[in-house]
C-alpha cells in the first residue's frame, strides 16, 4: 500500500514525551498554551491553563493558516518557511513546523517576550522532531493496535450515525 496513505500511530510512550515537552515549554516561556497539531489540523496534544472548548476549531484554523502561508512562501520562492508569528493586542501566536508533518503552536500574552519563545520553541521542535522520527520508525501492525474487528465495528457505526 502507498506509505503516504497509512496512518500515523502515536504510541503511549511517545505521547508522554510530547506532553512533557509541551508542559516544559509553557512553564519556561510563561505562555498560556502550547498545542501540537498534525498537519491535517488534528490536535495531538495540548497543554496550558484551563480547558479550551474551542480547541478543535482552533486546530483546524491554525493548520489552515499555516498551510496557506506556506503556499504564499512557495509563490515567493522562499524555500525555508518554517515558522510564523501573529501579533494580537492581548495574545500572540507563534507557529513552527516539525518535519513537514507536525505543527507546534504557542499562544502567549504580552508578559512573554517573543525572543524567548523563539529560542525555546527551537529547542522543543528539535526534541519533537526526534519523537516524530521514532513514531515514524515503528512498524507496529495496525491490527495490533486497533484489533481485527475494528473495521467492521466502524462500518456499523457509520451506517448507524450517517443516515437520513
Amino acid at each position, binding site marked *: 500500500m502507498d506509505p503516504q496513505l497509512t496512518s500515523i500511530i502515536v504510541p503511549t510512550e511517545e505521547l508522554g514525551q510530547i506532553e512533557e515537552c509541551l508542559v516544559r515549554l509553557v512553564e519556561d516561556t510563561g505562555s498560556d498554551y502550547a498545542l501540537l497539531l498534525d498537519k491535517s*489540523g488534528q490536535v495531538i496534544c495540548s497543554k496550558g491553563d484551563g480547558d479550551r472548548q474551542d480547541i478543535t476549531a482552533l486546530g483546524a484554523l491554525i493548520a489552515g493558516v499555516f498551510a496557506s502561508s506556506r503556499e504564499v512562501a512557495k509563490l515567493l520562492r522562499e524555500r525555508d518557511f518554517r515558522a510564523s508569528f501573529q501579533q494580537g493586542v492581548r495574545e500572540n501566536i507563534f507557529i513552527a513546523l516539525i518535519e513537514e508533518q507536525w505543527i507546534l503552536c504557542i499562544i502567549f500574552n504580552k508578559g512573554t517576550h517573543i525572543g524567548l519563545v523563539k529560542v525555546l520553541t527551537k529547542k522543543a521542535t528539535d526534541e519533537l522532531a526526534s519523537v516524530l522520527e521514532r513514531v515514524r520508525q515503528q512498524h507496529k501492525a*495496525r491490527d495490533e493496535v*486497533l484489533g481485527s474487528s475494528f473495521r467492521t465495528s466502524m462500518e456499523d*457505526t457509520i451506517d448507524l450515525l450517517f443516515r437520513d
Partner: protein
Amino acid sequence: MALINVAAREIHCKIVYYGPGMCGKTTNLQYIHSQVPKDVKGDLLSIATETERTLFFDFLPLDLGKVRGFQTRFHLYTVPGQVLYERTRVAVLNGSDGVVFVADSNKNKMQENVNSLKELAQNVTRQNKKFAEFPIVIQYNKRDLPREVLASVQTMDHFLGVTKMNWPRVEAVATTGTGVFETLRAISRAVISKL
C-alpha cells in the same frame, strides 16, 4: 493519513469536499450539520465572503463516539471552488485521508468539473500520494435541475472518466439532502478501509 493516538485512544480522519465553484460543497456540510444528532456534531465553522462563497474553508467536526475502545473523530472540510483560490485548496487538502468530489450536473458546467478533477489529481500527486489509490467518492449534485440543462449520468461518467477509476458514485440533491448521507457513508468506508 489518519492519526491514531494510542495513549488517548483516539482516531482522527480528515475528509475534504472538493469541486468547482457553486457545485454545492458547502450545502452538503450544512445538510449534514442540520441532521446528525447533537452529541455527534461540533459547530459548523464557515469562512466565507459576504456573498456566501467559501473563502477559506468550511469545517465540521463529527465525533462518532467509541468504536472498540477508540474515540473516533471525522473532520469534514470544504475547499473554496472558485478558480482564483487554487492555492487555498492546496492548503486545505493538506493531510486529508479522502475526498468527496462534488460535480455540478449542469450541462454547462462539464468543463469546470473536468478542470477541477484534473487539478485535484495534480494536488493529490504533489502531496506524494498515489491518486489511483487515494480514497475518492464522486457525487453528481443538483440532479433536480430542469431537464434542459441536466447532464445525463452517462455523459458525466464519460467526461469525468469515473467508470475506469472504479470510484463509488452517488447522485444527489444537496439542498434537500438526497444522497448526502449516502455520499458520507461511502467516503467514510473508503477512508476506513485504508486505516
